[in-house]
């Protein structure tokens, strides 16, 4: 208490976790793993109309080594599943996974021989964005949810 009053307003005290979380949540580098229909809504969200950049997530990186959020956009078939797993393994910690659309959440309308019934059977998922496909507003809501999660979690250094 005493130190703070001595320093006045020239210094802000906080916890490392909190400041790291704040920094991380506003500099999300997405890896759009786009396979199917949801990609159209991803494009709409990323373009100027809905402008994903307002949330600090505007710059997609197409190398998993440079990305920290894996956006799984669209149906994952059993043929695609090993590739998704591999991309996820190539990403550096800390990393998050967003399941974009009904197919990635649960298999969606495709309950058949070819489709993975939810990507959480393959990679751990942080945020589920439902919808077939989700509207851009839902996507932005999902990103805000992810930011809250990042802010409040324990930050690994």
């Amino acid at each position, binding site marked *: 208490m005493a130190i703070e009053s001595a320093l006045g307003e020239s210094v802000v005290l906080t916890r490392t976790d909190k400041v790291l979380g704040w920094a991380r949540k506003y500099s999300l580098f997405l890896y759009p793993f786009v396979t199917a229909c949801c990609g159209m809504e991803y494009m709409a969200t990323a373009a100027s109309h809905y402008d994903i950049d307002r949330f600090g997530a505007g710059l997609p990186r197409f190398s998993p080594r440079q990305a920290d959020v894996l956006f799984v956009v669209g149906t994952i078939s*059993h*043929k695609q*599943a*090993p590739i998704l*797993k591999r991309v996820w393994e190539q990403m550096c910690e800390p990393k998050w996974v967003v399941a974009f659309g009904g197919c990635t959440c649960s298999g969606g309308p495709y*309950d*058949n*021989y*070819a489709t*993975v*019934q*939810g990507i959480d*059977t*393959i990679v751990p998922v942080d945020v589920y964005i439902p919808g077939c496909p989700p509207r851009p507003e839902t996507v932005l809501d999902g990103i805000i949810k992810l930011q809250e999660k990042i802010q409040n979690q324990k930050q690994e250094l």
Partner: protein
Amino acid sequence: MEESLTLRKLRERFPASIIDTHSFRGDDTAVVKRVDVVDICRFLKESTDLSYNFLMDLTAVDYLQMGNSPQADRFEVVYHLYSIKYNHRVRIKAPLTEADPTIDSLTPLWAVANWLERECWDMFGIRFNGHPDLKRILLYEQFEGHPLRKDYPLTGRQPLIGPKN
């Protein structure tokens, strides 16, 4: 109803190999013996007054559950041809038995037959004699069985990784 030019020509040229013809809802269809499929298609493509220059589609149907259809002719390979010059279409169907689901390849006539026949093999397990590279196209090598056959279950999942959910 009068028979269309294509079906009449086919009957004249291949009297022995045409099993049946019909025109349901205006779609001309000829059911032919499988040994003559390549000859018939070549005739349709090269004959100047028919000139079917497009192989629009190639697929198959599994008639296993179609009630009264005989088990003997379980599959039918279906070809849809189109002629740009005369603007007409025809459907050629060739029945195959379950014991010997093979038919000659159309790859010498149309380049697109390559992929279409691969898909047909992948989905139905129909072998095409003379195909340059008959392998799976939509599914993966490790997949067992042919999903569009009627005895393959809808949810017969064969995952490469992860649980069989």
